[in-house]
């Protein structure tokens, strides 16, 4: 036991492994959160086009493009997407590894969020749209002012799950693109073949991050629900 701790201490402090861990922690959080933000933007656009595609011929063309996009990104493992972007698409370009990871995770998340948002939009009663249109508001205005706010409220819990899944998925970013939590601890562990402490520690760090996210999501959910009950 003692030996293990000494080995860990040596790598973590003396050899400066903590620097990697801090950088990795930072990157993991950035990739997960920025990835989700990009995902929400892409997902909302794709979902909107897919929903509008039912009644508008131009939108139908874009909706088909959206279907291909979600199909590809949901149908292949994220690590494969990272490899393809790293070695094929970005191979000629000198791009920062972190940025690369953000782009890939954003695109990947967008495909999932598109499904989530589509469900959210469809879960809003059609009468809300009809009421808006009847008052002489345009389709986009009614979407923005009436449908999206309700759709987003409906999908906050699911988006929370997406953030959690995304955070855990980032653990593969280190294999290709950039320093992340998993890679930082992996380096510590493999430096002197003492795996137990670094990997249990790694699990603990993820667990804490996710507990914090869960707490924040619950809080936001509660706030949103309260705002409608106010009298």
């Amino acid at each position, binding site marked *: 036991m003692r030996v293990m701790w000494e080995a860990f201490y040596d790598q973590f402090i003396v050899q400066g492994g903590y620097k990697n861990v801090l950088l990795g922690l930072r990157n993991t959080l950035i990739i997960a959160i920025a990835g989700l933000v990009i995902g929400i933007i892409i997902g909302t656009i794709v979902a909107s086009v897919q929903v509008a595609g039912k009644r508008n011929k131009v939108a139908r063309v874009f909706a088909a493009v959206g279907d291909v996009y979600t199909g590809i990104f949901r149908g292949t493992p994220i690590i494969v997407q990272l490899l393809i972007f790293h070695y094929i698409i970005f191979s000629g370009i000198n791009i920062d590894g972190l940025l690369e990871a953000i782009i890939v995770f954003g695109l990947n998340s967008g495909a999932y969020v598109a499904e989530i948002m589509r469900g959210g939009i469809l879960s809003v009663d059609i009468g809300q749209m*009809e009421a808006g249109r009847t*008052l002489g*508001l*345009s389709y986009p205005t009614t979407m923005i002012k009436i449908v999206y706010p309700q759709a987003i409220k409906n999908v906050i819990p699911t988006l929370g799950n997406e953030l959690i899944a995304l955070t855990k998925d980032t653990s593969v970013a280190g294999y290709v693109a950039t320093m992340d939590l998993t890679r930082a601890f992996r380096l510590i562990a493999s430096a002197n073949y003492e795996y137990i402490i670094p990997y249990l520690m790694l699990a603990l760090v993820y667990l804490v991050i996710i507990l914090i996210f869960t707490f924040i999501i619950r809080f936001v959910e509660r706030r949103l629900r309260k705002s409608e009950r106010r*009298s």
Partner: protein
Amino acid sequence: MKEEVNAQASEAMAEELHTAMIEVEHLTKKFGDLLVLDDISEKIEQGEKVAIIGPSGSGKSTFLRCLNVLEDPTSGAVYFEGANLCDLRVDINLHRRRMGMVFQQFNLFNNMNVLKNITLAPVHVGVQDLRRIKRRNLRTKICNLFRKKDKKAALEPVETTVRQIKEEAKENAMRLLKRIGLADKAEVYPSTLSGGQRQRIAIVRALAMNPKVMLFDEPTSALDPEMVGEVLELIKELADEGMTMVIVTHEMGFAREVATRVLFMDGGKIVEQGPPAQVFGAPKNDRLKDFLSKVL
């Protein structure tokens, strides 16, 4: 000069063709293979209160929803104040603002409080118009930079501000809420209100746009019996004030009392129509007789 005369003539002709407030010509609606409206032609004049009755599935709602093109007619035309609403070049949003619609399920905006529900559309439309004028003025100003002094174009007057539009909309909304005795509910969200309260708010939300005609689709069918009265009362008030209205209803007593004309629909057609006394008192059509014997 000649052109002007021509223009006037054609305008007069257009008016002659569609002078009624709403005119429906050969309106047909199919859902897939299902023929729901079968070549209906009908006129609704200003000030009329038209009640539409008929068995379930006869196409009453679909007919009403075609009047403001919430449902796209398969063929035929709907004219509102002379404009063909089925013409894609017509800005439908402009015309819908003059046609209020009230739904069976109220359809208040769940994400907004009562006041915002009422002011949303008036404020949006007002601000949009204001922005449009300002944009045009900006363009004029830029063009004026390149014009000679005596050739500068005049700017359109800007008579209001966003703030003023919001204030006015709010005042108007509060006035309407007072009228229905719900001024104290202005800040409340729809989910906390009773059905009767929601429906009355839905009605004044439509009124806030100053519509020329109100379309009601079974406004009391989703209400508990004790709340039907308050909603019908409000609709009756509107009728007495001279509002043109088309109302799909199962409340025969109400139709008899308020309507100036009753349309009986069956199988996608208007099978019989006339003043309430005639339709209810001396029905000619067998299907109408059958229907009345069931509901009266």
